[in-house]
């Protein structure tokens, strides 16, 4: 009886866990597919830029990317699948040294500021910090974006610097 009872009570939990696993897997697949699409669009635009053709692949995919980046429930999947590597690739300067479309910059910087889950490990894996530093230095970056880039750099370096400071205190 005791065994049966345990089985009965554990069933709904298992069902819930199974459902969550299915949802997690679906989220992972969605984010992973998007990452591949982002990397491929970045490569296409680089190629177009080299051939002096308009680079529009990233812009075409931008609405889809923003839809995923805005979903706070996907934070773990975004981390696990290194979607921010795609974001980093999209923010990189093109072969002719031009910056990506302003629409991309204007969409990405504010959303990055909202992503509180971006920590030192996420930054190391995605190498996002390196391109954001570039935006703080490049004179061709519009003032709003440069300010946002500076804010991100201070926010991301704070926990690292604080560790040093608190050790001394």
């Amino acid at each position, binding site marked *: 009886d005791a065994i049966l009872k345990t089985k009965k009570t554990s069933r709904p939990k298992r069902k819930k866990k199974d459902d969550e696993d299915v949802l997690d897997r679906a989220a992972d697949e969605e984010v992973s597919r998007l990452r591949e699409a982002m990397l491929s669009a970045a490569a296409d635009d680089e190629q177009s830029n080299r051939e002096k053709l308009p680079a529009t692949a990233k812009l075409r995919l931008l609405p889809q990317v923003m839809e995923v980046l805005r979903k706070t429930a996907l934070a773990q999947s975004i981390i696990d699948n290194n979607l921010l590597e795609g974001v980093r690739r999209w923010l990189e*300067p093109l072969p002719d040294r031009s910056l990506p479309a302003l629409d991309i910059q204007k969409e990405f910087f504010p959303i990055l500021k909202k992503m509180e889950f971006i920590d030192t490990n996420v930054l190391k894996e995605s190498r996002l*910090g*390196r391109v954001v530093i*570039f935006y703080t*230095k490049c004179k*061709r970056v519009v003032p709003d974006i440069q300010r946002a880039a500076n804010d991100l*750099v201070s926010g991301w*370096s704070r926990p690292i*610097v604080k560790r040093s400071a608190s050790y001394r205190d």
Partner: protein
Amino acid sequence: KTGPRLDTSKLSTVDRESLQQLYEVFGNGGEYEWALEAQEIEDEGNGE
């Protein structure tokens, strides 16, 4: 181009680790220097 070298000998272990972390997160600034060169050329053209 290489940036100025820091003398880290007087830093504590924690400071040195933090500095290392900052390098790992933000790089040494050289990664996209090739794209910054464009503005230097422009600046020179403007007589700056």
